[in-house]
Every structure is written in C-alpha cells, then in structure tokens.
C-alpha cells in the first residue's frame, strides 16, 4: 500500500494549523473532558497541557517510526498500548516531582490515554508521515491545546478564587464565584471562548452540525 503523504513541506504551516486553523479544542472540539475538568486552577492546566503535549509528541513519533509494521486491523490497539506507556511515565513523573499537582489532577492524568487529541493525531497524521513532521505536528496540537487550557483556567481561577497561580489579583472585597470552580463554569467559559475564537477566525459550522 502506498501511503499518501500530506503536502506539508513548511514546518510553520503545520504549526499554524495546530494553533489556530485546526485547533484541537476550538475548531475540532476534541479532548474536551480533560480541558474542562482541570481548568479550575492555572497550575493544573499548565501541568495537564504539558503532559498532553509530551504524550502527543512521543506517541506520534513512535507510531510514525513503526507505521510500516502495524497491521491495519490492530492499529487502534497498537496506538492504545503505545499511548498508555507514555501516559504511565507522565503519571510516575508527576507523582515523583509534583505530588500536589498529581493529587489535584487525580484520575485525569490517566485519562490522557482516552484524550481524543492523542488518538486523533495518531490516526490522522502519524501513520502517514515521517517522524520529523509528526514531532512538529504533535507539538503544534499540544500547544494549541495548552493555550486554550491556560486561557480558560486564568478566567476561571480569577473568578472562582480571586487568584492567578495563587497570587491575589482581585480586590479585597471580591466575592468568589463558587460556580466557576465547578462544572457549569467550565462549560460556560469554554463555550464563550469557542465563540470568540470562531468569530476571530471566521470559522462557522452549519447549524445542523458537521455530520448532517
């Protein structure tokens, strides 16, 4: 089988794609679970973003290396095994060096495995492209994910706790919006953020959704 190579020759085109035009969260709406659940504190968002970036890059590169050896029928399971190996290393790293963050993120570190971004990049890009492009692509997707996470978490932490990275930013009389630390706050802020980015990039969906 001849593999179709995407016509990506310039690395900055791949970068730009991941950050804006093909942003995994805002445009493709992938990887939402973790991006909502961990964005109540900026430090959690940074840890999660870097963790995902590392896993996307490492697993894409590995899959790209062995792409000619993977039989098409079992490729999903192969991705899963590769991805979970890297996620386990992220989990052990966080537990060893940042125990408080590891505790705050809890089960969500393990859930990087089922983060659709990782799987999506493996299936859509890594199996068709050589290693060096997958590294750039993984980095771009990971950064696209991280910057949305950090933006959302800055808004949420400021409103919910009156702090950013544990520094007080709100005036003394500020009453914390408790709901912002909970699930509804995440949904609303991410929804509004998606609206903002889509207006800025002029990306509109048909009202029925993509599949109809």
């Amino acid at each position, binding site marked *: 089988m001849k593999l179709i190579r995407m016509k990506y020759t310039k690395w900055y085109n791949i970068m730009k794609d991941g950050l804006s035009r093909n942003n995994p969260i805002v445009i493709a709406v992938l990887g939402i*679970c973790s991006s909502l659940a961990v964005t109540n504190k900026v430090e959690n968002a940074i840890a999660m973003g870097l963790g995902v970036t590392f896993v996307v890059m490492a697993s894409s590169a590995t899959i790209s290396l062995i792409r000619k050896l993977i039989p098409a029928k079992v490729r999903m399971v192969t991705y899963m095994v590769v991805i*979970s190996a890297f996620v386990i290393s992220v989990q052990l790293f966080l537990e060893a060096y940042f125990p408080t963050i590891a505790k705050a993120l809890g089960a969500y570190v*393990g859930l990087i495995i*089922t983060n659709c971004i990782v799987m999506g990049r493996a299936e859509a890009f890594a199996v068709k492209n050589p290693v060096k492009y997958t590294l750039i692509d993984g980095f771009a997707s990971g950064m696209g994910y991280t910057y949305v996470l950090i933006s959302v978490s800055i808004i949420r932490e400021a409103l919910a706790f009156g702090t950013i990275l544990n520094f007080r930013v709100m005036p003394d009389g500020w009453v914390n919006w408790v709901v912002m630390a909970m699930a509804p706050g995440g*949904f609303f802020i991410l*929804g509004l953020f998606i609206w903002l980015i889509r207006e800025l990039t002029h990306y509109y969906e048909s009202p*029925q959704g993509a599949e109809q």
Partner: protein
Amino acid sequence: MQNLFEIILGTILNHNIALVYILGMCPLIAISTNVKNAKGMGIAVVFVVTITGIINWPIYSLLKATGTTNLALLVFIITIAATVQFLELFLERFIPKLYSAFGIYLPLITVNCVVLAVSLFFVNREYTFLETAAFSFGSSVGWLLAIVLVAGIREKMSKNSDVPRGLAGKGIVFIVLGILALAFIGFTGIANI
C-alpha cells in the same frame, strides 16, 4: 444493600459522570444530534462500562497482590479494547437484532473516557466488588441520561431557534451542557458516595 442503592442513585444524579465530573464529552457532543442515536450510544455505553468495571476489579486485585499497580493503566485499556471487540463479535453472532441496533457505536466506545474513568475511580476510592458493580452501572446510566437530555434539547433547538453564527453547531452544546450542569448542582446532597 442500602449503600449500593445510594451509590447507584448518587452516580446518576449528584455525582453524574457527564455533568459533574465532565467525562465522555467527545462522544456526547458528537452523537447528541438526535435522540435515537443518543439512546443507542448510551445503551451501548451502559453495557460496556458495567462489564468492564466488573472484569477490571478482579484484575486490579491481582495486580495489587503482585505489586505491579503501575501497569494498571495499560492493563485496563487492553481489557477494555478486548471486551469491546468480544462484545461486538458476540452480539453479531448470537443477538443480531441488538447488534444492528447499536453495533455501530461499539468501536467508538474504546475511546470513550467514561469507560476508563470508571475503572480509575474505583481504584482511587477503594471500592469492594459489589460497590464497583453498582458504581459502574450507575455512572453509565447517568451518562445515558445526560446524552439523551442533551440530544432532546438539540433536536428541539435545531428546528426553531436562532443561534449566533459563531456558536452554531458544537459551540451551543457547551451552553446547553452548562445550564444542565447548573440544574444538576441542585441534586447536591441527595446521596453520598
């Protein structure tokens, strides 16, 4: 017994896995365009989550006995993939009616975070076997409830509402989910799990 009932009630309402723990969002947003598909996906999830929860518990206690809990993630994900594959073949061979109803959703479930999350949560909370079974069942029913609610709202909304351009499609689902999640906060304190 009362404890098990409390776990099921709690996971459906005030600890709803979709609207409170925000898990399983990708399929929830992608497949909730109409109620029929949403129901099919939801029922498939209930099957898979309950079965994998029950299978993963003894496996985890085996890992604990041999001191290899670091590998839990890898083992869980393989169990899940295998279960989904097995269920697909089993249904196709023996219950073709059921297979034609939700067979197409089965492959998608491997990447549904609810399945893995349930296995990771019972590890974190140190549940017994029966509690794990109740927790898996309740969580997946809670997810079914959430996806059907969202699909119902989206179906109505697609006919007669004027959504802003930038929010059309998937964007507005977040606002719907946010309002639903607010409503579910009202259940706080119904059951402790």
